[in-house]
């Protein structure tokens, strides 16, 4: 492309502009084309307004760098005076050395460093500290409970699995396997899958409860991994406690086997009882007080792999109730006298007693005293006909939301409650339920050995 003469002229003029010659001077040098060149050269000049020629750029950069260096010296100088000021050098001495422009800064710094704001109220400071300490204590207890629970799932329960179930259970496993196959045949063959779900919400004494226990046994038999089996034991033990609490809350008989199954699934009661809500602890404490008499205690212990567990439970119940009695206000829901007579001797039944017989109140048991109390003195030995396996009912102020039943088959192994946020399902132990009454905060540890749970104390006000 051949440039026209005007284009050559434009290039020459732009070069002149770039060399620093003023726009008007360039145009004046080409008067014949000034009108044509003016808009184009004006645009070029405008675009290059901020791009000074190289020589001027070097000059400006030098000025800028000098200004930066001067500023930096001033900043460092101020910093030096500040350091001296904070080190205790008198202000007057610094003012004598500093530049006049720095005086207001140094005085302002001096005022800032030497002026104290109004002191906070000592009462508020102390109250805040007390609150912090109390919260820290509570959080530590929560953390320890959670840690202990986790340890149970992955550690201690393994011992239970090995110790309680592994030894004498070859025949038991064969029996359970047969049962499992029978259950599978029932569910798959007869198309009664819904029965399993319905059975999961059943309670002792109800028609489907036996199915629920058969399913549990089948699951245990089919679970080969010991850790997974341990998780299942914990879950099923949690179920037993839920059932106990729900029966007690609903004024229904509590089978002794249920208590045994719960205790046998728990090597450490501290964690389990300590994480119950206050209302649940109240229910449990009263149940134990009323029904675990010395005679019944011996019988029950015979069915326990760790007999001391029952002693710990009783000790916890005694401590809880004593603390509640010492409180100014009633610590627990009022106990209503059961309308039906109950078995004061509480004879436990054999561990493998058919589930269908559990939870059936007997009509031939002695009448309950007006105020149920555990008898510390000798108790007449129960007759053979008293082996009713029934824990009489305890009245609760409110039903236990945690005792609501759900099929836990879908829950992750080892998790005794529900995931937070699950709608329509009860919260895990230790977390308040939606409609759970705010009962008296109670002592928590079932035994003196429980150094991981808060020490028993009088119930606080709700």
């Amino acid at each position, binding site marked *: 492309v051949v440039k026209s003469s005007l284009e050559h002229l434009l290039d020459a003029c732009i070069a002149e502009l770039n060399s620093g010659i003023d726009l008007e001077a360039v145009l004046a040098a080409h008067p014949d084309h000034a009108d044509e060149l003016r808009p184009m050269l004006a645009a070029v000049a405008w675009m290059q307004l901020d791009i000074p020629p190289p020589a001027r750029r070097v000059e400006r950069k030098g000025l800028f760098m000098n200004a930066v260096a001067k500023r930096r010296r*001033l*900043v*460092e100088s*101020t*910093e030096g005076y*500040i350091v001296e000021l*904070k080190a205790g050098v008198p202000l007057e001495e610094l003012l004598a050395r500093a530049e006049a422009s720095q*005086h*207001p*800064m*140094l*005085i*302002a*710094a001096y*005022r*800032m*460093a030497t*002026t*104290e*704001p*109004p002191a*906070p*109220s000592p009462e*508020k*400071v102390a109250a*805040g*500290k007390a*609150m*912090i*300490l109390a*919260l*820290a*204590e509570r*959080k*530590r207890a929560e*953390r320890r409970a959670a840690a202990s629970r986790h340890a149970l799932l992955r550690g201690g329960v393994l011992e239970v699995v090995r110790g309680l179930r592994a030894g004498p259970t070859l025949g038991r496993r064969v029996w359970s396997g047969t049962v499992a196959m029978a259950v599978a045949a029932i569910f798959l063959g007869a198309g009664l899958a819904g029965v399993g779900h319905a059975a999961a919400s059943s309670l002792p004494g109800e028609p489907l409860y036996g199915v629920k226990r058969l399913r549990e046994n089948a699951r245990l038999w089919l679970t080969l991994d010991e850790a997974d089996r341990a998780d299942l034991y914990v879950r099923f033990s949690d179920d037993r406690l839920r059932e106990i609490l729900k029966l007690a809350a609903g004024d229904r008989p509590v089978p002794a086997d249920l208590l045994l199954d719960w205790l046998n699934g728990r090597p450490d009661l501290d964690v389990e009882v300590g994480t119950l809500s206050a209302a649940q602890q109240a229910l449990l404490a009263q149940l134990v007080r009323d029904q675990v008499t010395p005679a019944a205690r011996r019988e029950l212990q015979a069915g326990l792999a760790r007999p001391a567990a029952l002693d710990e439970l009783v000790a916890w119940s005694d401590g809880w109730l004593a603390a509640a009695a010492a409180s100014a206000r009633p610590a627990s829901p009022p106990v209503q006298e059961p309308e039906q007579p109950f078995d004061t001797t509480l004879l436990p039944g054999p561990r493998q007693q058919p589930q269908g017989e559990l939870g059936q109140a007997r009509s031939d048991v002695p009448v309950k005293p007006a105020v149920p109390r555990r008898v510390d003195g000798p108790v007449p030995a129960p007759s053979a006909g008293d082996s009713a396996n029934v824990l009489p009912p305890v009245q609760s102020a409110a039903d236990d939301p945690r005792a609501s039943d759900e099929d836990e088959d879908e829950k992750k192994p080892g998790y005794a409650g529900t995931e937070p946020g699950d709608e329509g399902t009860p919260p895990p132990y230790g977390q308040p339920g939606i409609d759970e009454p705010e009962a008296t905060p109670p002592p928590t540890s079932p035994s003196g050995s429980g150094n991981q749970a808060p020490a028993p104390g009088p119930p606080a006000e709700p």
Partner: protein
Amino acid sequence: VQEEHDLICKAQEYDPVAFGRIYERYYNGVYKYIYYRVGDQSLSEDLTMEVFLKAMEAIDTFTFRGVPFSAWLYRIASNLVVDHFRRQPAQSTLSLEEKMLLGVDVPVQQLDSQFTHEVLRQALAELTEDQQQVIILKFVDGLSNVEVAQILGKTEGAVKSLQHRALASLGRVLGESGEVLA
């Protein structure tokens, strides 16, 4: 440093004793910082308490990366102050003159000191957010440039520069008020 490390480790186990020591050690600094930002004693006390509660809630998330624990607390405090002003932008504390005009009872023996820190607080309010933080952290809480830089997430040089500009502004404001140079 090791002592602070041990203390925080214990606090992360929710040791009440450790939390008590943390509270005692850092309360005054956090309180002063908040006071000069909000200018109200009662509110400062409440926000200071909130700082420690939040610190307890989040103590698990604190990790040692060469930043002092106080820097973490001051950052919580700063966020709380910002949140406070975001929630209640229209509510400002009364100046001493306004309190006196409105007949609010101010003890005579506190007038001098209260007047001084009230003037300083109002002068501080004229500064930018970063400048305020540098001045309060350096002169009220006595932190070093390194610590201030860690709290603000800036370089030490930037802190010095901020300090210089802040003091220049502060000196000018105080000079205009006729108080600081009197």
